[in-house]
């Protein structure tokens, strides 16, 4: 190794250390605007969204989807859980917004909006994975603690049918009753 190569390596090391010190300084400075009412730069938004979508696609690719997502039993099981756990952020028929949809950033998707075309296996895998694992720093929690896979799949089944429900159909399907159809 000649003298020039050595000094170049030293130079590079100094530059890297300065960059790291700059990043650390920025982190500790408190200058980053962390408020949810301060929107990301378009480039940051793209990077985070791409990171999220690629991560979910990779992690959910091998999940096997049950064949009975279209059964009425799934809708009856998933409806009350959706209403109690999801509707505050992801809305319900005849409700266009809530405090959560107005204040969360990024805004949670409105799951009552109609989707184009048939729901694919990939979409079912994605929805299941998101409900089960949640998404970091987005307000979406992991529902795995306290909910087994069967319950989560029933929520997926209900979410698939949600855009076609009227307000009165939603009310009937999401009310919690015992096995004999009686509320308490």
């Amino acid at each position, binding site marked *: 190794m000649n003298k020039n190569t050595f000094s170049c390596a030293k130079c590079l090391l100094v530059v890297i250390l300065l960059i790291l010190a700059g990043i650390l300084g920025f982190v500790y400075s408190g200058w980053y605007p962390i408020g949810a009412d301060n929107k990301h730069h378009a480039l940051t938004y793209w990077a985070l969204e791409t990171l999220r979508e690629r991560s979910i696609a990779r992690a959910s690719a091998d999940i096997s989807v049950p*064949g*009975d997502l*279209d*059964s*009425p*039993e*799934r*809708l*009856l099981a998933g*409806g*009350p*859980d959706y209403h*109690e*756990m999801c509707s505050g952020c992801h809305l319900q028929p005849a409700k266009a917004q809530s405090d959560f949809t107005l204040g969360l950033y990024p805004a949670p998707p409105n799951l009552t909006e109609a989707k184009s075309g048939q729901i694919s296996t990939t979409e079912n895998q994605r929805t299941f994975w998101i409900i089960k694992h949640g998404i970091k720093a987005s307000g979406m929690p992991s*529902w795995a*603690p*306290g*909910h087994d896979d069967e319950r989560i799949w029933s929520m997926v089944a209900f979410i698939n*049918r949600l855009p*076609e*429900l009227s307000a*009165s*159909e939603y*009310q*009937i*399907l999401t*009310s*919690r*009753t*015992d096995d*004999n*159809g*009686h*509320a*308490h």
Partner: protein
Amino acid sequence: MKTLQQLLFVAGLAGLSLTVQAHDPKEHMKDSEKPNCEAMKDMDHEKMDMNNPVHQAMMKKCMAQMHDMGEMKGMEGQDHSQHKDAAKEKSEHQH
């Protein structure tokens, strides 16, 4: 021995707290609204597709109340058990 007892006590408490944290449907049943099956009276049952899982689920949910409510629009003279059978058949077919 004392340490073992303490460990068992802590493990028991941890198990109890997990049980309490679980989303128990029975807990929500107390606050849940009754299904408004009366709304089904205003729906045109002749236009209802009984192969649609949404309609099947609603019929299942409201079956008990529907019998109390009596006949509904478009269902006069129809055998309610047909709807029950259609829902059951589809459900069995999918399993």
